[in-house]
């Protein structure tokens, strides 16, 4: 029953969109006031999608296997929480979530943009409706989440166990709010270009939306990364997997856009950047959907490869790209007051410089992600691009990037001198000395790492100093930059100081290294609702201080589908993560034990939270002012 309601609700939603377009065009041409009907129909459109989405959730909760999506991705023995999260853990459901976010954003946009010019609002709505209708057709035609199957199966096929994880259950909705949030920026930028409304007021008003998508995207990426660390059991948090890359690319575009908007708010320049980046951010989100959903790339996130779906998204994606470029080239008039007076030492110059760096990082990732496809098509060679490629091309450029991040905010708008900036040099020297002292003691390449750590530390010190001196002015910028320096530092030291031991052990055996002793004390077996679990008990004794930890890694044997997953046991404190996993070896008497110590792991997560906090405080400051 909920499935049927869901399906018809989807159809009604589709019709409301078409009616909405009709009214908007009529209103755009004729009247001077904003037609109330538009608001009503955009609410209806949103409401129908909400009903449809809840219909699907209910089908999942009731384990209604007459619904094909539920049958393929759920099982009666699954805990309620994962039944619900199963709703968006598949292609059809996640597209319905896309649609939900698309329609909700345009509705709230219309409510919140009362003080904006009417024609601009309606055009934004129209562009957004093009996207929405595209997704309605895509959903109904190729990926209907409410397909009925008969005879009704007794039992579902189950959700992939590695997706049964709390962080991953909320990862898609959060990430989608970021991805799809960029659609409203896209529509609004196109509308503003057409209406020649690229002004400081526009920048001020769109900044909120940029911030919202940016915050959600940052948190979404963070959640995905945490999941990879806990669940995949390799002890890493970022693998440069194509799907991770496609989430990072819109993030880079949005971050750059955010900086441009800040400049635009103060001084009407960089508006072409803002428009191009708005287009880029959304197209990259779409491109991500295309790459992931079409099966053109092989990845953990590929749900099902169906060429028909791929072709649809591809054509739709390029339609949007051509449409937006057409609008940009025909309507864009250039900055209104063309005061192209860039001084070398000014805030806007440093932001511009960092924009170029960010664009460089983005291109590296874009090339690395799509190159295998191009090569495959052109020469039928199959390759995959791994971390070394990204590290080689990105790390050296982080150095000037970090330094510009430290010094840039110290400069004034328009023109600035270097008077009274002695502390800039002092802090640099302090960072350099500390770094040299630290790096000498590490077994790493001296020159590159010294420069890298120095620049990260430099940013760190400068932002810390600002917390004390400037107190609350430019607090959000400062906290975000502080978070970024912390992120780079934690990643670097985490990389340098991680140790790893891999050994095969039987119960009762002990493995000794120079620093610690691992004793395999016991195994235990338990039965949970939808899996059996084998728990190992390990005693790891640290030889230097004699303290020991008891660690309990798990092996889970899920019933539906029948898959064994390895659950890492991680003991976290502020300085060090102790990470242990175990796995079957062929004869099932020995277990393969992988023990890692990973310093400063938790700081990687904390620093991303700081970065997002920067966005959040900026959002609230905004609300206070207006």
């Amino acid at each position, binding site marked *: 029953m909920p499935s049927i309601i869901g399906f018809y609700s989807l159809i009604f939603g589709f019709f409301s969109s078409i009616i909405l377009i009709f009214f908007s065009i009529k209103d755009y041409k004729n009247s001077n006031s904003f037609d109330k009907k538009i608001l009503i129909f955009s609410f209806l459109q949103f409401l129908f999608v909400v009903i449809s989405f809840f219909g699907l959730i209910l089908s999942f909760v009731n384990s209604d296997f007459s619904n094909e999506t539920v049958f393929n991705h759920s099982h009666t023995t699954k805990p309620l929480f994962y039944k619900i999260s199963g709703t968006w853990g598949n292609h059809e459901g996640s597209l319905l979530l896309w649609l939900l976010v698309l329609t909700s954003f345009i509705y709230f946009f219309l409510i919140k943009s009362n003080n904006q010019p009417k024609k601009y609002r309606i055009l934004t709505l129209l562009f957004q409706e093009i996207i929405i209708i595209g997704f309605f057709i895509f959903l109904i035609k190729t990926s209907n989440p409410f397909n009925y199957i008969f005879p009704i199966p007794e039992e579902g096929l189950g959700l992939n166990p590695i997706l049964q994880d709390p962080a991953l259950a909320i990862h898609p909705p959060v990430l989608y709010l970021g991805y799809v949030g960029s659609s409203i920026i896209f529509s609004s930028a196109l509308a503003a270009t057409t209406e020649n409304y690229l002004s400081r007021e526009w920048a001020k008003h769109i900044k909120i939306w940029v911030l919202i998508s940016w915050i959600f995207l940052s948190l979404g990426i963070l959640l995905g990364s945490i999941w990879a660390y806990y669940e995949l059991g390799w002890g890493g948090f970022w693998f440069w997997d194509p799907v991770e890359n496609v989430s990072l690319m819109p993030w880079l575009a949005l971050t750059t856009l955010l900086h441009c908007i800040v400049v635009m708010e103060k001084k009407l320049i960089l508006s072409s950047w803002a428009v191009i980046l708005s287009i880029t951010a959304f197209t990259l989100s779409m491109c991500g959907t295309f790459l992931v959903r079409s099966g053109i790339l*092989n990845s953990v996130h590929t749900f099902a490869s169906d060429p028909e779906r791929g*072709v649809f998204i591809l054509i739709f994606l390029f339609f949007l790209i051509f449409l937006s470029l057409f609008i940009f*080239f025909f309507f864009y008039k250039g900055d209104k007051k063309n005061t192209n007076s860039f001084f070398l030492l000014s805030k806007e110059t440093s932001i511009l410089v960092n924009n170029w760096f960010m664009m460089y990082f983005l291109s590296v990732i874009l090339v690395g992600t799509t190159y295998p496809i191009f090569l*495959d098509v052109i020469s039928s060679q199959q390759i995959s691009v791994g971390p070394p490629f990204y590290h080689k091309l990105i790390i050296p450029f982080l150095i000037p990037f970090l330094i510009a991040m430290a010094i840039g905010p110290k400069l004034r708008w328009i023109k600035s001198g270097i008077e009274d900036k002695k502390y800039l040099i002092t802090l640099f020297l302090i960072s350099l000395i500390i770094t040299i002292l630290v790096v000498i003691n590490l077994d790493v390449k001296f020159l590159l790492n010294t420069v890298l750590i120095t620049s990260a530390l430099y940013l760190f010190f400068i932002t810390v100093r600002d917390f004390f001196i400037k107190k609350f002015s430019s607090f959000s910028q400062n906290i975000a930059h502080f978070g970024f320096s912390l992120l780079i530092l934690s990643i670097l030291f985490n990389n340098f100081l991680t140790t790893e031991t891999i050994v095969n052990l039987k119960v009762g055996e002990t493995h000794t290294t120079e620093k610690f002793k691992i004793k395999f004390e016991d195994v235990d077996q338990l039965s949970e609702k939808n899996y059996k679990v084998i728990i190992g008990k390990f005693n790891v004794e640290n030889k230097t201080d004699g303290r020991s930890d008891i660690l309990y890694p798990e092996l889970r044997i899920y019933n539906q589908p*029948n898959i064994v997953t390895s659950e890492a046991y991680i003991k976290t404190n502020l300085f060090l993560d102790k990470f242990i996993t175990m796995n079957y070896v062929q004869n099932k008497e020995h277990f393969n034990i992988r023990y890692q110590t990973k310093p400063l792991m938790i700081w990687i997560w904390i620093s991303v939270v700081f970065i997002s906090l920067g966005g959040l405080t900026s959002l609230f400051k905004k609300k206070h002012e207006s």
Partner: protein
Amino acid sequence: MKVKFFPSFLFLILILIFLIFYKGLNKSNIYSPDNIIEKKIPSFSGKQFYNNLYITSEEIFDEEKFYLMNIWASWCVPCREEHSFLMKFKKLDGLEIIGLNYKDKNENAKTFLSELKDPYDLIIVDRDGTIAIEWGAYGVPETFLIYDKKIVKKVIGPLNDDLFFEIKDLIK
């Protein structure tokens, strides 16, 4: 109207990217990381199970078709287990199932098939196990997915639900 250089250039580049993505989509994506280099199937000849006539591999395998080659024996317990999956495969369109009856007695094999039903479109007898060796098989049961006279996928041990759906996806 003057045609601007940059927009037209960008337009061309984008068209090119579109075409490449489009071609990339239609390229069959059937490879798994462990056998990226698809091996050609070995050529062999063997007796047919029901009529004792000789048949060669060239006669069995067409190029543009999927085949599932399953090595089985009546004495092999896991073969019983996977039998239901073979019956499921039988219902799929565009897939022919070839059985290789490995080191088995004809009588026993026939009872096995009459008891559990016969999923195979063709069965070849491998009395001394030489054909299985040519295929590089480890033991029974073992299953090969073949397309274009190449081994697309190799399954060691009995088939299961996951493999069923994986193979079903591959042959779509």
